[in-house]
């Protein structure tokens, strides 16, 4: 029995090691064993530089500083983390874009809860190896933590998305979500009153309502609702908007139920501002043969299995904010203390028609939407930010 055990260990050890060596991925330096490294998102894995794996405070830092020092960027994402197919992933896109065009190195942190925002911000601010040139804080929940951290580390540059911290070392970026939502609202209002059929969905001309599914109710998400409702009303005063807040950004089943109830009560099109909860909205649209509108990114691309029901998406270019803040730091033009508001005019928000369905939307819908876009930019239409003001 004892020799059996020994042989077992030996066999497991040898096959294990061989198996490890044969695995598809691994560092590309190890020539012979290099394979095709699994799916696409895995290749997005951050590039490893020696400096990053070194322990802070270690003396052997010289070899890490190769060539000209790259600009060091730290990312603190919103809770929910990468892979949400909308907000955080969009921010990461900006980072990738900056990486392509400039010599930057970055490190990413994904907090689980609000108490961790401060921890990560501090770790980046405190680090001297590497010394971070910019720390990007994604999401309005980081506001309070950043107010403290920015005051504690006045030499560190920060950027904040979706909220404002009034400090000389923080560049704040906010978005006019209501403006973009107005456009998708107008489109929904125009489509719901006619007979329109494309992909897996259809609208019936006699229905007079559309739906809005929100994540957790907050002033930010209410901006989406306000713009959408205003847009719908602008298109047709007789169309009503049914609203439901699920209470969670990561609960597709809740989104599914909310949207099904809306479709069953006659809504043709449902817009969501609910992160991953919105996946349930798309599924409900497919089940009921109706349409949905995506948010933050072109979701007919990021959630391509639902592209036959996603007529359009309200894109919020968080990537633009991240990219331009990094660009500013690289060019030594960091705009500390400034608040950059990205609206329709700056292409910070906008409407993107679905990959599959976009071409089937009639011109007498897209035309007025394009006119409204210009009218909002010119100040002829003013979009409310609170649903109570619609």
């Amino acid at each position: 029995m004892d020799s059996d055990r020994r042989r077992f260990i030996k066999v497991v050890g040898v096959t294990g090691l061989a198996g490890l060596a044969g695995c598809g991925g691994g560092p590309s330096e190890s020539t012979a064993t290099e394979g095709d490294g699994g799916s696409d998102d895995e290749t997005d894995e951050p590039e490893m530089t020696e400096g990053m794996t070194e322990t802070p405070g270690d003396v052997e830092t010289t070899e890490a500083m190769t060539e000209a020092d790259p600009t060091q960027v730290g990312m603190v994402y919103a809770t929910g983390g990468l892979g949400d197919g909308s907000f955080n992933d969009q921010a990461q896109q900006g980072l990738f874009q900056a990486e392509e065009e400039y010599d930057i190195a970055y490190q990413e942190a994904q907090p689980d809860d609000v108490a961790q925002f401060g921890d990560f911000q501090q770790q980046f601010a405190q680090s001297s190896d590497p010394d971070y040139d910019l720390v990007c804080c994604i999401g309005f929940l980081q506001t309070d933590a950043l107010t403290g951290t920015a005051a504690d580390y006045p030499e560190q540059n920060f950027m904040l998305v979706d909220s404002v911290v009034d400090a000389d070392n923080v560049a704040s970026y906010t978005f006019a979500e209501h403006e973009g939502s107005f456009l998708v609202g107008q489109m929904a209002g125009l489509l719901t009153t006619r007979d329109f059929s494309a992909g897996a969905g259809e609208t019936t001309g006699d229905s007079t309502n559309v739906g809005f599914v929100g994540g957790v109710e907050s002033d930010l998400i209410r901006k989406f609702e306000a713009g959408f409702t205003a847009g719908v009303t602008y298109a047709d005063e007789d169309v009503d908007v049914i609203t439901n807040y699920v209470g969670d950004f990561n609960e597709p089943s809740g989104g599914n139920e909310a949207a099904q109830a809306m479709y069953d009560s006659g809504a043709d099109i449902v817009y969501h501002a609910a992160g991953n909860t919105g996946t349930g909205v798309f599924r409900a649209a497919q089940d009921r043969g109706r349409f949905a509108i995506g948010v933050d990114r072109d979701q007919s691309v990021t959630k391509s299995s639902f592209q036959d029901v996603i007529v359009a998406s309200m894109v919020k270019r968080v990537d633009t904010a991240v990219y331009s803040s990094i660009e500013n730091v690289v060019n030594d033009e960091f705009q500390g203390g400034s608040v950059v508001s990205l609206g329709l005019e700056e292409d910070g928000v906008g409407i993107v028609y679905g990959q599959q369905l976009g071409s089937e939307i009639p011109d007498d819908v897209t035309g007025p939407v394009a006119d409204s876009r210009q009218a909002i930019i010119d100040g002829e239409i003013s979009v409310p930010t609170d649903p109570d003001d619609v």
Partner: protein
Amino acid sequence: MSARERFRRILDRLLAASGTERALISLASLVLAIAVGTVIILVAGRMTTCETAAFWLTHPRPLGVPELFRVGFCYDPVTVYDRLFLGALDDPLSGNWSPLDGQFAVTLRETTVLVFTGLSVALAFRAGVFNIGTQGQMVVGALATALAVLWVAPLFSGVVGTLVLVPFGLLVGAVGGGLYGAVPGALKAYADANEVITTIMLNFIATGIVLYLVSEVFKDPDSLANQTVSLPDYALFPVVLFGEQFGVSVLALLVALAAVVAVYYLLEHTPFGYDIRASGLQPAAAEYGGVDAARTVVASMTLSGALGGLAGAVYVLMILGNFQTGVPAYGFDGITVAILAGNNPLGVTVAAFLFGVLKSGTTVVQFATDVPPQLVGVLRGLIILFVAMPEFFRLLGRRIAGPERESEREATVATDGGHDTEHRAPETRDGSGGGPRR
């Protein structure tokens, strides 16, 4: 020997293990967890792709033997575990240890809250009640503290404010959490409702009601987030020793340790503690011996809830400085802490510290390496699983092995001159059911 018999013998062996042996078993489990985790890190490091290897594995090359193979890995297990443990302690081995101004502060911060939630769960467990609702009790306590302190704060200022408001806030938190804990306790005692189900449901109710209150009634109008107005600085735990930015206060840690001693004393040295333990071990026998079962359940759930509420109060007064929805899952972590500690209040301190190290170390690992946070979560889970398993089997063994073996063991302890309070306590009760205390 049948497998069943062998299993029983292992359980018996675990039951008979002395304190030192249990510590050694835990240490060995920790090492084993790290070994298994290392393999997982290496495998994961082969499944992803990167440009530069973080870790090379090769065979030893004595006397200039040529290198036959060399395998590169994307993740370095040594760095991961180094950061997970030493990073959380601010590198005590590096020579210039400055524990007051770095990650160690975060570790202690997590530990402080976890001590309270761990105690909360452990106390209920000892009474034979599974309180899964510590999270909800913590949320209620946290909101109660924030609102009460906000309401009273304008009446005070300066040092007097701190001296009055911090104890006041803790008290309100404890009362709020305690009342919320009493609800499932009463439901179990008088309506025979399963406390596991009621406490889980009450967690959702707490979260929902609190979200409504904070977003509709008590919301800070200047903030996008669902949170209350910030409390004034003098109403918060004063920062001693540690840097202000870490949100840790030695005073709060002292309160936590005081709570540990208090719960230990309560359980081991008071008649009420004896009732709790007796109900937990043998509810029928306890009732026959004169313990008012319903009252004990309600009282222990109330105390357990109060400890959860204290965790919430500390979270508000030490970490956040206001109340914000989305309270981290300290309450659920408390369940793990209690099991790790074998439901021993003194052990809770150690278990909470281990858990605090793991939580705080996770952020350091994420910061210092490219290992994805999900993988670090797996490693953390492995450590907890491996360390908790022997304790879990001990608890199981106590049930299976039966009371007669238990008493054998206790008897040997007593003749050793060990703590014999458990045997003395029944005599003071002289079977009348009332006991001298009422």
